[in-house]
């Protein structure tokens, strides 16, 4: 946030403030080598997967990061070493790719299973429909996590979606689950269950996590569309606020101080990284 206000980031970012419990809980339940695909709002997933915050900040800042060397930016980051096959800036586009990763995992037979996170708005993309049907008929284990934050861009989801995500799962003969997406432990347990159900049944499983976006759709979003009082109400259920209640005042203070230091340190180190070299721009288009 600080970097944005300082004008260090070119373009916009899509922050997942308020939604942290979904990636944190889900990654607890997953194997570290389960392939992961997210949306442009995937920062939380990358960090929960263990991506170094220095690399992470450097990529957003357009530095010569260890991740993608400034080619991906905020919305299209990948971390192959961490089995993150990419954020995606095209709504819904990650789901078919997850089907293919699932096919590869099934062939490898090593118990891995891909997880793809999408927003509830993405449920209305043709791609997603095609992929859920295809994964189901081809018997491909995978988990689709739908992060329902109440909005699709700037329009309330309820205005755009005839049948909620979890209910749609039945139409594809797959299990659809719902979970309080602000409770990391609940998310962990439901995703763990989804993982074994999917592997056992050989079909995809959908998990709809109900959460809230405590910021705008993107960094420059003034949120004029928000009804008065809505944000304040949602702040009560912020997973960070809830999580704090599980700790003593002293423990919470210590965690907050540690995190603040970690973030500040990572940010400073990222800012110090050089810009990518211009001659790099033409490389890696083809294998040779």
């Amino acid at each position, binding site marked *: 946030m600080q970097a944005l206000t300082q004008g260090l980031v070119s373009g916009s970012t899509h922050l997942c403030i308020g939604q942290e419990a979904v990636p944190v809980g889900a990654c607890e339940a997953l194997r570290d080598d389960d*392939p992961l695909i997210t949306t442009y709002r995937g920062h939380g997933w990358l960090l929960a997967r263990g991506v170094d915050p220095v690399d992470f900040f450097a990529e957003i800042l357009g530095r010569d990061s260890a991740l*993608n*060397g400034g*080619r*991906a930016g905020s919305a*299209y980051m*990948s971390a*192959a*070493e961490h089995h993150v*096959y*990419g954020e*995606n*800036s*095209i709504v819904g*586009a990650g*789901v*078919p*790719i*997850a*089907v*293919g*990763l*699932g*096919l*590869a*995992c099934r*062939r*490898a037979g090593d118990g891995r299973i*891909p997880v793809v996170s999408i927003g509830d708005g993405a449920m209305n993309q*043709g*791609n997603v429909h*095609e*992929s859920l*049907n*295809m994964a189901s*008929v*081809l018997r491909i284990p995978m988990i689709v996590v739908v992060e329902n934050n109440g909005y699709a861009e700037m329009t309330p989801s309820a205005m755009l979606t005839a049948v909620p995500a979890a209910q749609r799962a039945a139409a594809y003969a797959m299990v659809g689950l719902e979970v309080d997406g602000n409770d990391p432990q609940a998310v962990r347990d439901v995703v763990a269950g989804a993982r074994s159900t999917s592997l056992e049944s050989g079909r995809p499983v959908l998990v709809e996590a109900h959460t809230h976006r405590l910021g705008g759709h993107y960094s420059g979003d003034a949120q004029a569309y928000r009804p008065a009082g809505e944000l304040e109400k949602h702040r009560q259920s912020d997973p960070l606020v809830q999580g704090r209640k599980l700790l003593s005042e002293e423990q919470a203070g210590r965690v907050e101080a540690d995190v603040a230091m970690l973030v500040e340190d990572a940010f400073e180190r990222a800012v110090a990284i050089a810009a990518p070299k211009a001659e790099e721009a033409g*490389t*890696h*288009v*083809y*294998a*040779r």
Partner: protein
Amino acid sequence: MSTLADVQALSYIRAVNLALEHALATDPSVIVLGEDVALPNGPFGATKGLHAAFGDRVIDTPISESAMVGTALGAAMGGLRPVLEVIYADFLLVAMDQIVNQVANARYVSRSALTAPLVIRTQQGHTPGACAQHSQSLEALFAHVPGLRVGVPSTPRDAYSMLRLAIESEDPVMIFESRRLYPTKGDVAPGEADAGLGVSETVRRGSELTVVTWGTGRALVEESLADAAAPSVDLIDLRWLSPWDSGAVIESVGRTGRLLVVHEANETGGFGAEVVSTVSSALGSGLRASGRVGLRGTPVPAAPPLAQAVLPTVSRVSEAMSALMEV
């Protein structure tokens, strides 16, 4: 090199089938997927016998082109070598996001940490009676996109060897076959992929005019050259549009001074313009005259007389050649 005994006359479609069989037999990471490719043996027979031989490595998919391409991409990033059949090139348009935004970017954005070694095979072009949604030639659209490789085989030998090269490539490759050419026969040397990716074939040598073509254009040009009045032509079958063999074309036009590009795709914004522009930049006034013959700026009509009026024909190629010879 294969011996003469290995060389057999095969149909174009059988050559495709043989290349797929070879890939499945020699590389366990190869899978074949598409609509009707497994149990029904392929809409045009390209995958005949493969499901029987290779079981669940040959997969029938739902009619979901976008999900099919995405699945091939995910499988490729996950370590497999998928060969996807899309029945008609026109249907690629349903999957443009996955091809252009997803497949083509995987390597670049990750600096090769993620790669997408997949093949999309399809067939394209006019077949009499087929409507405008089953007749387009779309190679220029995809050759335009950095990150994709594009090949347009015009003979059974190339249908075989180019597909082999495509499957072995570390890059995503699109192969545009031609349904009209499927029954044509020619010598194929199974077990061998001869020409390299991006390498053209000089079909015949001449001194007055360079004609560059690919796909169905090749037969058309050869027919035009059967005319005794035809000039002495250097005929180059480009075979690949990405990468394309600009060196061979520039060398040839450097000798002949004249260039004609013949393709079935629409002329407007087409790849012929790319060829002419590249040669012109390289040779300056060494290029005395150039021209293009392609589809004349319309969708492809179904009725044969209408199609004849807008598609490249032998007479249009002959006229273009004589016009260039007058410059």
